[in-house]
């Protein structure tokens, strides 16, 4: 695999990627943008999806930039971007994105793991053979994550784990869990935490799906009763799990800023609005109040997109990534949530269809997305936590939450 970054080499890679994708992405999966989402949340795939997964596993392109020694694609950042563009061109999706392995756990193990941990876990993540969940939040430790109480005790030849986690995404489908536990109850709250790699297939772990307002159950409450983890299952150092766990969340935020993957172009909001609300004789949206707000939203979306592009350009420049990256999560969330609200409002009474006859598939989907999208400003560091971080780290204002 070449890692030459010259323009010519990059174009050669583009041709190579395009040819491989044309030959290997099953024709039956094209123009089905909903599939990528189904993969992320559903059970193990079958048929052509399974075939596509197998081919990508052999190629290593589900983890395009990871080292080849663990089965990864070994591409540089520019090549990975080209690959993404080429996949986007034919609506191909990454079939390995189920669970948190590719997006968060894998990069963190690559950074903090021992050689033995990398050999054990990375190839399985690259090939999509295991699904990972993350045991972070607890009933009494949400935005104040460092208050977590689930404990792991040194039981001689293993760790013994007791407690419970909540909002554990996909726990009921997962094989492994990246778990934050308290190993030193006497230490300051950030200092007594350890990051464990825990096998979910054991009697001491009981994941229970939580039904949410959008109707689906992607999150679980997970109970740990004398569950066990190997002594060498610690990622990083014992009692230094806060550092590891925070680093992992940076991977999470990076994947939530709208820059991570090339999404299929959504239908222009103004066209949907014109269909429902009608136009005047000049072709303008007839509802002038809605027109103004749709324009504001589209301008905000454009501003966010321009900022993503600026941050990407700056990170390639001499002075490195700018502070602007810190605003992207809140900005992306606001744009997405406003769009979801507008879609509901535009459809009027049809904007609250739940299921069954009488509503289009898109109408029902918009309702579900609007509801599930409320989580965007809660997970991954809530809207308010993001503002605390900006206030403290960038603006240098005093930290009143005593977090770190």
């Amino acid at each position: 695999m070449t890692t030459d970054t010259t323009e010519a080499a990059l174009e050669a890679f583009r041709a190579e990627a395009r040819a491989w994708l044309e030959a290997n992405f099953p024709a039956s999966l094209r123009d089905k943008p909903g599939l990528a989402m189904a993969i992320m949340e559903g059970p193990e795939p079958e048929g052509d999806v399974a075939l596509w997964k197998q081919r990508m596993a052999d190629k290593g392109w589900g983890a395009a930039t990871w080292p080849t020694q663990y089965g990864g694609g070994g591409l540089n950042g520019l090549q990975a971007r080209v690959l993404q563009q080429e996949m986007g061109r034919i609506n191909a999706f990454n079939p390995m994105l189920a669970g948190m392995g590719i997006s968060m756990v894998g990069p963190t193990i690559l950074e903090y793991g021992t050689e033995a941990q990398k050999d054990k876990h990375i190839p399985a993540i690259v090939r999509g053979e295991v699904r990972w969940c993350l045991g972070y939040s607890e009933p009494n430790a949400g935005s104040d994550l460092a208050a977590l109480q689930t404990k792991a005790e040194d039981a001689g030849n293993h760790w013994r784990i007791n407690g419970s986690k909540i909002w554990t995404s996909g726990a009921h489908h997962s094989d492994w869990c990246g778990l934050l536990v308290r190993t030193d109850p006497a230490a300051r709250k950030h200092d007594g935490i350890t990051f464990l790699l825990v096998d979910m297939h054991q009697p001491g772990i009981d994941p229970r799906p939580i039904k949410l307002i959008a109707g689906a159950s992607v999150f679980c409450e997970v109970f740990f009763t004398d569950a066990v983890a190997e002594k060498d299952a610690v990622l990083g150092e014992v009692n230094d799990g806060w550092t590891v766990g925070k680093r992992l969340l940076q991977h999470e935020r990076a994947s939530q800023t709208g820059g991570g993957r090339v999404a299929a172009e959504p239908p222009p909001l103004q066209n949907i609005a014109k269909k429902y609300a009608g136009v005047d004789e000049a072709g303008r949206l007839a509802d002038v109040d809605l027109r103004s707000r749709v324009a504001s939203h589209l301008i905000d979306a454009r501003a966010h997109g321009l900022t993503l592009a600026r941050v990407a350009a700056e990170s390639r420049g001499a002075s490195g990534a700018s502070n602007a990256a810190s605003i992207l999560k809140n900005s992306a969330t606001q744009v997405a949530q406003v769009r979801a609200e507008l879609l509901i409002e535009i459809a009027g009474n049809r904007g609250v269809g739940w299921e069954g006859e009488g509503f289009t598939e898109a109408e029902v989907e918009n309702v579900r997305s609007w509801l599930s999208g409320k989580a965007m400003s809660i997970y991954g560091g809530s809207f308010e936590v993001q503002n605390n971080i900006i206030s403290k780290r960038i603006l240098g204002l005093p930290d009143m939450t005593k977090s770190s």
Partner: protein
Amino acid sequence: MALLTEEQVMVRDAARAWTQEQSPVTAFRKMRDSGQPLGYEPAAYAEMCEMGWAGVVIPEAYGGSDLGYLTLGLILEEAGRTLAASPLLSSALACASAIVRGGTEAQKQAHLPAIASGELVAALAVDEGPRHAPERIALKAAKSGDGYVLNGDKTFVLEAMAAGLLVVAARTSGNVGDAKGVTLFLVAADAAGVDRRPLQLADSRGAADIGFKDVKVGAEAVLGAEGEGAALLEATLDRARAGLCAEMLGMSLAAFELTLDYLRTRVQFGQVIGGFQALQHRAAKMYGDLELARSCAEAALSACDRDADDVAELVSVAKVKVGETLFNISNELIQMHGGIGMTDAHDAGLYLKRARSVEAAFGNRAYHRDRFARLNGF
């Protein structure tokens, strides 16, 4: 900050050094208190021209440096920070770009070197009512012999009292609202029948209403093609708006920094007020708005440099986002400073007054939201 060339970094650093040292807010205050009728100090503008600032979008053949709109934007951003007053935007950006884009060789020779050197100030006369409406040009230019006779009124013409040359949007045919029939004219500000009446504005800057009564101009006064001036006017306005966005961004940054300093130092209830989360989250919002605003302003200026197809859309996006940011920050500047921000001795009021003036100039947020919607087919 966009990725800048070495030359652009040098220009920006020089602009920052000069504005901070030679033209801080105290200089603006002194100009205001002196009752200077032009709304800027000619000596200060002469220094700016000496540094080449008035020639940044003018080709080298006509005495400029042709460094482009993003570069001039960097200068305007620094000027915005300290409220450094000058006719840069009206003369060296708006009118210069109109002549560069639409002028004949003779017109370019006659005016561009003089604008670049600062010897000539030019002003753009577009609006005829209180709200920006370049689509509704009514001032009449009637054909008369080889030339034209202009009759009508222009209002809120920035830097009109300092101007030696006016770029006037007039109607040579058709009706108000028609795109066709608009023609731009180059008119000497002291031509017979031109009556300039200065306006006293809250921001202490220069502007005037102008009456045109039987003003005679020759055929050589037409800038661009007769009846086809709407596109040239729009392109000119978009460049002026993009430049204004840079100035507004600079004002926003300075107003935010003033506010942040106050949050860090003002003690109430036994702690600095910047420790209160109610204020922290508003500060975080201002910071986020500033980053988004910068992306938009830089994208609009860069699009002008590339003469891109989506200049109009990017400019409207920028005027809305930068406008929103400046509006909010200029209000928070006063509110977070409390009583001291209400005093004339504090700089907060100077920023607030200028903020509303530039909001209205070349189309406010409502105008540009509407324009954005039109450009996107709704």
